């Protein structure tokens, strides 16, 4: 477990549901998953019970490398959680994950000045441990 933190302690923690529990359990082990339909092979995020392509309920986890590229982004200049004031501006990115069948994940760019973010930027996962059994994937320049 790393101890690196990029966001304040009082950020709302992730809330796992029955459908996302396996994803968060893997995240706690620093493994990044996407969900895949075992009938048609369509991958998807976030995890859910039903394949949006073929309506099958059959599904499995597929681990990905944690590498990807920035598909789109925004740079946030307002502290919607008051303690974020010291983190401004922070960068929200949508990452297209390598080897995922085109699945995109919303996350943050860390360990980089906000000015460097751009569409097509290569990034790799950087895990932020929030507490025992809870980790959130952020991304840093690759």
């Amino acid at each position, binding site marked *: 477990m790393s101890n690196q933190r990029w966001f304040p302690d009082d950020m709302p923690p992730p809330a796992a549901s029955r459908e996302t529990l396996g994803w968060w359990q893997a995240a706690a082990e620093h493994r990044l998953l996407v969900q895949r339909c075992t009938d048609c092979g369509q991958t*998807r*995020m*976030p995890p*859910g019970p039903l394949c*949006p392509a073929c309506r099958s309920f059959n599904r499995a986890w597929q681990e990905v490398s944690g590498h990807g590229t920035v*598909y*789109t982004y*925004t*740079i*946030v*200049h*307002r502290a919607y959680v008051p303690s974020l004031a010291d983190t401004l*501006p922070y960068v*929200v990115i*949508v990452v297209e994950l390598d080897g995922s069948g085109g*699945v*995109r*994940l*919303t996350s943050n760019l860390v360990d980089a000045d906000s000015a460097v973010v751009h*569409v097509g930027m290569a990034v790799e996962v950087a895990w932020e441990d929030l507490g025992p059994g809870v980790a959130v994937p952020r991304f840093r320049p690759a």
Partner: protein
Amino acid sequence: MHLYGTTSEQMGHIAVTFRTHAARNPRAVMGQRPMTLADHQASPMIADPFRLFDCCLESDGACAVVVTTAERARDCRRRPVALLASAQGTVRGYGWGPFATVNIPDESFATGGGTGVARRLWAQAGLNPGDVDVAQIYDHFSGLVILSLEDFGFCARGEGGPFVAGGALAWPDGVLPTNTHGGSLSEAYIHGLNHVVEGVRQLRGESTCQVDGADVCLVTSAAGVPTSALLLGRQ
């Protein structure tokens, strides 16, 4: 912006145009607060590329619309407006996942998701964008107006920025006077129902930015989520 080179200044033209319309509307929250393009460019960045003046107001307010049959409407005291067509929905895959917009297909990512609604709306009414005299386009954020204008066919994909910067939305001389009440950016944010009310005013000849001889008004709901739209006609 990445695909077509749309600029913050082009989005600023939308905000300034709607503010100019609001200045004539006594109901408009921002009616007494003129804005220039320089004011827009100087407003603080909220979430890049949206500055403060690209974001709609937060308002308390209410409006109402009475919908009835054409037969009953004939007996009303106020002049009725015809509902020419209405449609709702989205394009395939646009709503994938609860964070709707991150996993929509690449071909529809940089759209407002309204192309299917637009196609059905025009077909239902037997009209096309060239028949629209005035429009009320949902303006939660300035940039989303550009996507709606493209979705509904007022300009080609990627040309919305130059289209709005060229004055297309300005009353009275633009090719498509839009948000003649000031919109959610400058009249009030009543979740777009005030856009329907302004459409009715235009077709009754009662707008504070009245388009001469307005016969057809397009009213749209939000781009970026499953959406809906109306075509209203003068009775």
